[in-house]
């Protein structure tokens, strides 16, 4: 589904991604772990081109999306993204948060979009919040709504950048639960997280990133049981 070739990203003199190549297949649940500053967010943000790669090539379903002529707005419709800080639209209520993009991009009529939104809200048990505004919700509620806001676009792929890192501990579970269900439904997912339990349980592959490269890649079982590189061993000894 996504083929990444020798992806590099520099911010001025700072080399953040130093040649990443990877192949994400349909239905994969890729979990990315690594120390702070290793470039995980930058990698994720390059996938939907919120960051423009310095060099390298990314193709999505056969289309070269790093081509300067690529239609980013169209491509991004197919890739949902969930942020650490939720980023619900503060000026819109929950229903409008979910329906804005599908309606404005003429993917659904307003009626359809609202119907879908209510169905999605029902699924996460927040139907009664449809007319509430983001400021009145808990972090866990915001993040679950952010997830269904992306789902309302019927994406082919979902990117998660530390979706539970800004949450109070008691709210982490409810968000991971929604992600788990999504994974079970067959969604292709790329997840940056510090939740090793989730990585082990849901991941089809776990990647370890450090200093802008993928240092190690393996199935969750192997990844956690038999880390090969010293850097990963060191990392795991700190986080487990």
């Amino acid at each position, binding site marked *: 589904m996504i083929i990444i070739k020798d992806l590099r990203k520099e911010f001025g003199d700072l080399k953040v991604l130093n040649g990443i190549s990877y192949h994400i297949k349909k239905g994969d649940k890729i979990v990315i772990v690594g120390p702070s500053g290793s470039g995980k967010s930058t990698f994720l943000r390059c996938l*939907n081109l*919120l960051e423009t790669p310095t060099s390298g090539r990314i193709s999505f379903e056969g289309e070269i999306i790093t081509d300067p002529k690529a239609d980013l*707005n*169209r*491509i*991004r*419709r197919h*890739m*949902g*993204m969930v*942020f650490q*800080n939720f*980023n*619900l*639209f*503060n*000026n*819109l209520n929950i229903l409008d948060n979910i329906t*804005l*993009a599908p309606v*404005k*991009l003429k993917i659904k009529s307003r009626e359809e979009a609202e119907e879908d939104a209510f169905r999605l809200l029902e699924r996460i048990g927040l139907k009664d919040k449809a007319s509430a*505004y*983001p*400021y009145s919700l808990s972090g866990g509620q915001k993040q679950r709504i*952010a997830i269904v*806001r*992306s789902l309302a*676009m019927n994406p082919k792929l979902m990117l998660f950048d530390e979706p539970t890192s800004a949450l109070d501990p008691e709210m982490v579970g409810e968000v991971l639960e929604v992600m788990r269900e999504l994974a079970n439904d067959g969604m292709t997912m790329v997840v940056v997280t510090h939740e090793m339990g989730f990585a082990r349980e849901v991941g089809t592959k776990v990647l370890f990133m450090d200093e802008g490269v993928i240092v190690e890649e393996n199935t969750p079982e192997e990844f956690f049981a038999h880390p090969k590189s010293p850097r990963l061993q060191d990392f795991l000894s700190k986080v487990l």
Partner: protein
Amino acid sequence: MADFADKFQRAFLEGDRWKLYFKGLGLTLEVALFAAILGLVIGTVAALLRLGKTNDGKNTVGSFIAGVYIDVIRGTPSVVQLLIMWFIIMKNSTNGVLVASLSFGINSGAYVAEIIRAGILAVDKGQTEAGRSLGLSKAQTFLYIVFPQAVKNVLPPIGNEFIVLVKETAIVGYVSLSDLTRVANQVASRTYEAFFPLVGAAVIYFVIIKLMTIGLGILERRLRKSDHH
């Protein structure tokens, strides 16, 4: 005491002078209103231009021009701008109100532009990123998400700018317009008595500004009630 009452009488009542003050006030408000509208329009356009970036993140030509405009206006006294407008740029115009409104509007636009620019930049970057990640275009994201949030940020300082504007118009006497300040000054020199006309003018300005402040306060409170942050 009789002297006092006499001076009051001469400053305001003799020959229906009080009407002059109100005519002056009318002119003050007229210039301020036109200038405020013009300043809002120019300021919005200048702010959007100023924020313009090319796709590789460089400033656009529009951004450069808007930057120069803002710099020049803020770096020169408004009296000088008014005189330049009156004696040079529009020297053939006899419509003082028009010239003054234009001059103050162009002046105010620079300050409004900076207010709006700051208001837009104060909206969390994550809001834009969320919009773009859903496939909304730059313009759609701005229109539906960033702009509505920026409006809330800028209303209080814009209100303040309007208040400043009303007071700033006190210099239109330089181009022979009989605003409140000039009327008071004229009455003072005609009656050889400055106290009542000038204090009178000050009181009228103060009341107007106070009313504006109260109005803005109500507006802000109403906005805050529906504030969703």
